């Protein structure tokens, strides 16, 4: 029972952390290596809110909005000029990532900032679990559902899906491609910011938070393939299960390394990721 819970938590965590990156990659073929730093900024935004007296949930919203807007700025200033140049966007966002880490370290110092959490524990099958973990699982599911709902049921979602399938045709039909990309990048950034905020009660906000999660998210998205939702769900399930299971039995480092090795092997077998061959879907 404990194992199942740990695995579910692991999957949810991975999905939450990767979704923003997946949306941007799936939609724009941009590998945003600053994704981790977007999360980091979300964490700091949340901490600022809470320290100014706001409730935690408001901190989440503030983080999502703030980082979302920042994402729009990044898209305008940096990504915009590098479309189609997949290697250059990777390098440029890598540069942005270093820049943000350096900036935050200079401004706020390297130590972690935390916020008080009074969430209490829940007893389950003989073990104690922090009830915050359940909140995280719930939010993770929520993020996936909301993204799915937006994509499936709204006009904006339709536009995004259309542009994803065939940007030229979409453009010919009158879709403002620039605006679509800008909004999508902003949305992906907002998801990252939200993830960062949700993680703050667990990890605190520090400059190195991004580095810790970005490689996991990165692997998840690449192996997931080009369909953001399905790819993230499948890859998160696979890696979350492996990581949760192996970490429980051996250690978290062995879990991480196992995930990485499995990722390398999977990429060799499925060179375009799990959903690489699927032509339709989300």
């Amino acid at each position, binding site marked *: 029972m404990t194992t199942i819970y740990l695995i579910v938590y692991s999957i949810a965590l991975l999905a939450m952390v990767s979704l923003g990156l997946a949306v941007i990659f799936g939609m724009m073929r941009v590998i945003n290596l600053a994704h981790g730093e977007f999360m980091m900024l979300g964490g700091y935004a949340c901490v600022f809110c809470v320290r100014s007296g706001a409730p935690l949930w408001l901190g989440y919203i503030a983080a999502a909005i703030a980082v979302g807007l920042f994402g729009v700025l990044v898209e305008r200033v940096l990504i915009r000029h*590098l479309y189609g140049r997949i290697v250059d966007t990777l390098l440029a966002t890598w540069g942005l990532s270093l820049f943000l880490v350096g900036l935050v370290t*200079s401004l706020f110092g390297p130590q972690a900032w935390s916020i008080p959490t009074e969430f209490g524990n829940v007893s389950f099958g003989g073990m104690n679990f922090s009830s915050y973990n359940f909140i995280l699982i719930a939010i993770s599911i929520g993020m996936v559902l909301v993204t799915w709902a937006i994509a499936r049921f709204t006009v904006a979602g339709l536009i995004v899906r259309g542009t994803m399938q065939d940007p030229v045709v979409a453009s010919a039909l009158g879709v403002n491609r620039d605006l679509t990309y800008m909004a999508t990048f902003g949305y992906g950034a907002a998801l990252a910011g939200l993830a960062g905020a949700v993680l703050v009660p667990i990890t605190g906000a520090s400059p190195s938070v991004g580095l810790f999660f970005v490689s996991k998210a990165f692997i998840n998205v690449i192996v997931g393939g080009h369909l953001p939702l399905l790819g993230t769900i499948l890859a998160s399930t696979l890696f979350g299960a492996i990581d949760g299971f192996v970490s429980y039995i051996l250690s978290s480092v062995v879990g991480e390394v196992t995930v*990485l*090795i499995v990722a390398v092997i999977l990429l060799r077998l499925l060179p375009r990721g799990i959903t690489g061959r699927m032509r339709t879907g989300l």
Partner: protein
Amino acid sequence: MTPEFSADAAVPPKSWWWALVALAAAALAGAPYFGDEAFQLDISIIFVFALLALSMGFLWGYAGILSFGQTIFFGLGGYSYAILALNLSATNLPFLGALVIPALFATLLGYFMIYGRISDIYLSVITLVVTLIFEKSIRSTSGPEYVIGAVRLNGQNGIPGVPALTLPWLSEPLSISGVFYLAGGAMLAAYVGLRLLLTTRFGRVLVGIRENEKRMELLGYDTRLYRLAAFVLAGAVAALSGVLYALWGNFVAPEMFNLNQAAQVVIWVIVGGRSTLIGPIVGAGVVQYLSNWLGTVNVGQVTLVLGFVLMVFVQLFSRGVLPSIGDAFERLRRKGKSYGRAP
């Protein structure tokens, strides 16, 4: 616009090039007489990084393989030397072993990726992931049970007390000046060696593959073999820089494998430009000098500046400093020509 890569790589270098190489060798030989040990240490590490940059620049610029994982072999080279040298009492075998072991791993990894026909961007991703695997694995080996022979891996603290190298024809281990000569000599030798390699059949075929792999295949070349050979060669050069790093600091640590180190290699090559062999060397020198100068202030600031440099260079000087300067000169030259023509 001038093409990114010189079409003359296959042409043997002219005499002025050889003169410059001789000059560099002379400068190298004489430098310890003009600078104290601190100076030599500062320059030696630049030689070490320049060699690492050269390995990546060669692989990217001339074989067309973008590897974010030269740090894999850099770290493996350093660690192999440390572990072998601390276990055996001699240092010559460890030196060789520290080149062979990474080369073997490069063959394995390269075969897996290149013969698996993994697409370019995913190849780059895998190299990044593998260097992360090494970093995470080694960083977690703090416990006393993680031992190879008599040497503890020591996790994130790294392995101190790496013995100095005693060359077979000398009776004493290398001093700081000795390491300076070795590092500088290795860098120069690697540069000259790679430059001359480009004039051989292997080098010319490699460049052909970079230009158009599919066409070369249709001409009858097993491109996978050539690319694998280039990957292993670049790995060996990176391993050499790793050994030199261990000799320079008498120390190896998991940071040799980490994301920051990998990012630095990329930055050196981007700043210097991948379209020449001298570019990465210059890039490493410039960036290291800059980092040293900034490092006296605050760690955070160095990362910040490096990140900024990377962003700017990717956008504006995507071909690197040297080619961009070359482009600027080319434009000035063309303007000059048009002024010279009769109206």
